[in-house]
Each structure stands twice: as C-alpha cells, then as structure tokens.
C-alpha cells in the first residue's frame, strides 16, 4: 500500500468528502492560498474554489459561531483553528452553543461541525502555541473528541467525523503531521468509540493517545530488549470512549500506564485512570502510572521544552517501575 503523511491523509479525507457532498465547506485562518499553517488544506482552494474554502479574518468566535449557524441550517462545515490554544477565544461557541443546542432544544436541530485543532509541544512555539488541553473538551457532553495517532486513523476518522451529525472536536498532533504510514487511496471510515491495539503484549498495558502512541511503541521496543512485553492500546476517540478494550487489556496484563501529552492534573490520563480504578481495580497488580506533560505552561527554551515533552525518557523508567510489582 502507498505511504502518505498524516497531514496528507487528512487532506485526502477532506478532498474526498468535498467531492462527494457539496454541503462540506472549509473555513479557517490561512487555509486557502497558504494551504493551512501545517499544509493540511493545501491544494483545496484550487480544486474547490473560494466559495467553499474560505480564508477567514482572525476572528475565531465569529467564524466558529458562523459554522454553528451554517450547520444548524443544513451545511457541514469543517473549521480549522490554527492551534488548540486559540479555541480559548471562541469557547462560548464551542461549549455553550455547538455542544448544547441539540440537547437544550429538546432534540431539534443538529450541528454537524468538525472543529480541527492541533496539540503538541516541540516546535519552540512557547506557552500559547504548544498546549495539549484536549481533555477540556472531554469534559463537555455533546461534543465528540477524536484523537488520531496514525495517517490511517486520521483519514478514516476524519471521514467519519464529517459524516457524523454531532459536533466533533478533531484533535490533530503537530508532531505527527509529517509521519508517514499506509493509507488506502479510496475513502473509508473508522467508527467512533473503537480503540485499537497497536501492539500486543502480555506484561503491561500502555493506553496512549496521539504522539504518545508512537513514543510508547518505541519504549515498548526498548523494553522488549529487557524481556518486558508491552501492549499499546490507542483509544482513537476520547468521546465516545472504548472502555471495553482497555479493561480487557488491563485484565490480561494487570498493569496500567496511561500516556497522554496533556497536563497530568484533570487530564485524559486522569480520566482513564479513574475509569480503571472504578471498573477494573481488582485486575491490577500495581498502582496506575500516568506519563503526561508537567503541570506547568510549555516553556520556550529548547532544553526545557525537550524535558517537558513526555517521551521514551519518561515512559521507560515508568514501565520498569511498574514491572517491580509481581
């Protein structure tokens, strides 16, 4: 199968959906001529024209709110927020409007917006362009939260997101955009709420999201050299969340490490840990360990930023520590 990057996979999903359904329109900052800050929308302006690929002013509350109104009246907008950090200036439109309408209007109306954001540190962009606060959206009923870790998942989940009638926060990872993987040329969907075991193992379960999947697979290879057999489970969507696959894996291995690039406090890893504590604690031989970003803003200075990003350097000692419990 051909290999393309994560960014190209999303681009292909957008292109295929736009061809198939003229209600699909793109909005965002610099997504047209520029092709998007991470080139995810490259070429789409030329193919679909400026009526359907709209370079908006820097007015997130305005254009995200406009997507809500457009979706409510029959369109299927896909909107790019340049960095997840910028969702803070349109949070009303996300939390109070798009997430609530279907419920608070008693099941009337639907808001099929896909809100594309990206997380991840490592580009020297400091505290306002590097955050990973995707957990925040998991806290809000009414939103789906999608977290692809591979090009294959990115394409299938994007097509599913666009076809879905609910508002979807599509959380991309900026360190993954250039990663390559096998992706079928034709369109396909990946259902929400289905985790995937990215590596089978018997000693320890890592539940990992986004770039932490790739990092966990690397750590698993290192650990294998020392005879530790690690299973890596990727939830792929955070809402809805596939508890079954994770609890099953924990039952098999008896040890759980949760790896997510968000902050440790009240993060994705905290939620997954709590879920296993409530529903699977008697299967555990060891305490649950979280490997996350520290509870500090993302620092600028390169050595600090490298230390900040959770990676093999943090995963390997953590999983060795877990193996000390018999």
């Amino acid at each position: 199968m051909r290999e393309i990057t994560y960014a190209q996979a999303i681009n292909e999903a957008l292109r295929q959906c736009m061809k198939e359904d003229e209600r699909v329109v793109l909005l965002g900052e610099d997504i047209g001529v520029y092709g998007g800050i991470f080139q995810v929308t490259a070429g789409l302006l030329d193919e679909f024209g400026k009526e359907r690929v709209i370079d908006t002013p820097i007015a997130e509350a305005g254009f995200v709110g406009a997507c809500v109104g457009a979706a409510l009246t029959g369109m299927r907008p896909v909107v790019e927020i340049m960095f997840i950090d910028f969702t803070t200036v349109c949070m009303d439109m996300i939390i109070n409007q798009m997430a609530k309408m279907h419920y608070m209007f008693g099941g009337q109306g639907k808001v099929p917006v896909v809100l594309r954001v990206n997380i991840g540190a490592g580009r020297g962009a400091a505290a306002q362009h590097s955050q990973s606060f995707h957990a925040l959206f998991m806290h809000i009923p009414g939103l789906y939260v999608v977290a692809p870790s591979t090009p294959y998942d990115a394409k299938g989940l994007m097509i599913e997101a666009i076809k879905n009638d609910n508002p979807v926060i599509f959380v991309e990872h900026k360190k993954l955009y250039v990663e390559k993987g096998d992706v079928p040329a034709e369109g396909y969907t990946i259902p929400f709420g289905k985790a995937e075991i990215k590596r089978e193992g018997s000693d320890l379960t890592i539940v990992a999201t986004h770039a932490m999947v790739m990092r966990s697979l690397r750590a698993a290879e290192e650990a294998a050299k020392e005879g530790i057999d690690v299973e890596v489970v990727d939830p792929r969507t955070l809402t809805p969340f596939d508890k079954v696959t994770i609890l099953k894996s924990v039952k098999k291995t008896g040890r759980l490490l949760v790896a997510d690039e968000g902050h440790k406090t009240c993060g994705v890893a905290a939620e997954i840990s709590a879920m296993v504590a409530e529903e699977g604690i008697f299967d555990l031989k060891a305490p649950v360990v979280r490997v996350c970003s520290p509870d500090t803003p993302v620092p600028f200075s390169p050595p600090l930023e490298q230390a900040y990003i959770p990676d093999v350097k943090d995963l390997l000692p953590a999983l060795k520590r877990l193996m000390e419990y018999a």
Partner: protein
Amino acid sequence: MEIKKETLIEFYTTMLKIRLFEERVIALYARGLIPGLAHLYIGEEAVAAGVCAVLRENDYITSTHRGHGHVIAKGADLKPMMAELFGKKTGYCKGKGGSMHIADMEIGILGANGIAGGGIPIAVGAGMSAKWRGTDQVTVCFFGDDASNNGTFHEGLNLASLYRLPVIFVCENNRYGISVGQEKQRLIQDIAIRATSYDMPGVVVNGNDVLEVYEASLKAVKRGWAGEGPTLIECKTYRWRGHHEGDPNQGRRYRTTEEIESWKEGDPIKRMARKLIEDKILTKKKMDDLKNEILEEIEQAVAFANESEFPTIEEMYEDVYI
C-alpha cells in the same frame, strides 16, 4: 409609506399577544408555576412585531435571553411555548431548555440564547448557509444594547459585511445591560453608528413605534434579497419590568420610578391602538374581541402546560448526541 390594513392589524395583534402572554407569565411566575428565570419583553413589543412582519416562514431568526416576543412574532405556538416555560415534556425543548432556549427549527427560530451576543455569529452562519445553498432566506439577529460591546458583535458584523450576507442586525436598545445604564457601557449615544465601521447602513428608529421598525426592516430585507448585504437597525426602547422577574422592585435599584413611568407613556401597543381607532381600522368592540381571543388562546396554553407531564428522569440522558 402605504401599509395595508391587514398588516396594521397584524402588528397590533402580535404586540398584544406578546404583552398578554407575558402578563400571564408574571402571575404564573409569582405562583411558582414557572421555575427558573423569566426575562420579560414588556414594553419592547413593537420591535419583534415590526421586524418579524417582513419575514417569511423559512426566514431565520436568532433570539436572546429576552426572547418570548421574538418567537411569538415569528409564529411560535403558545402551547409548547408555555409548556416549555413550565418545564414540561410537551414543551418546545421537551422541558430541557426553558424560557431562554425556545427554538422551532420548522419555522426558522434558531434558538433563543442565554449568552449575550451569542446569537450574532450564529445568525451570520445562517446567512452564509443561505448563500451556499442558493436560497433567498434572510436572517434576523436580535440582540441587546450591551451585546454590542461584545466581541461577537464586531466579529459578526465584519463577517456579514465582508461576505455581503442577507442578515439584519436588530439591536434592541433598552438602555440597560442588566443594571448598568448605557452611559456606563459606552461613550457613543447611538449604537447604529458602529455600522459605519463595517460599511453597512446603520439606522436608528423609535423602537416603540412599530411602523418605524417595520419600514426600516422592509428596507433591510430588500437589501438582503438583492444581495446588497446586511443592515444594522437600532431600536430605542425600554423594558418596563426588571431584568428578570425577581429583579428587586422590578429594576428600581438602578432606575427611578419617574423614568419607568415616562417610558410607559410611550406604550407601543396603546400607540398602535390609537392609530387603529383614529384611522377607523378597528372599532373598540373589535379590539375587545381580539383581546378576548388572545386571552382564550393563552388560557388554553396554560391549561395545556398545566396538564402536561414533567419529563421522566431517564429523559435527562436523551438527546445529548444524535
């Protein structure tokens, strides 16, 4: 401007319906039958009636926390509306929205909104949508004076102007953002001048004169249909009640009785009634009949709400997702 007799009667009927509905809400609220918050529109009826008279069923509106008038004028059915205020499952939102969130997608009511300025970008999106879908639907966006100080107002007007959207921004200037008088919100007298920044017409009308509101709306809607873009209409008006039922002394903590009484003298409904009598369009008798018909409709709505069931606890978990 020549306005048809039927239209004049429609103005009066709509305004009276809003007034009588809300007067009933006052009593029901006081008796504890309507829970939560009720932000009443009494005194501002000419705005909703005048604006909505230019709209067709498939045109859109976005409304505000003070939305009863807008949705009644757009054609909402009083039964599910009252049931919603009661929190009953037969309500417009199955009892899960309440007074601040009445919506009826079938007749273009894209929802009342509890966030000041929250509906503005949503209306812009409905305008974009009409353009994308190639329809001639117009969207009216109602909001208050203090919402015009919010970023959504400026972002929304800029987008609507930039894309030449068929959106009518209707600012109901009732002089207060909750308790804060307009002189403490901004230095300009007329919000309408803000339209200049967005290269769209900005007009000020007497919001207690339904004819003025109607004429300005008609001009705006024609601009929208012709693809000439949006309009900002500022309607100077006044809310007679407090910010919500339960506002101490109906807002006399920050307003004088004299001020409130002076605005009541400009009652938009009495004003219209006088005109209808003077122009011999309706007799006093006809007006009384009309009033009784509306009161009967309201009583039926109250009975419907009263007899309806509350939602079951299980229904709390429904409609979070499709």
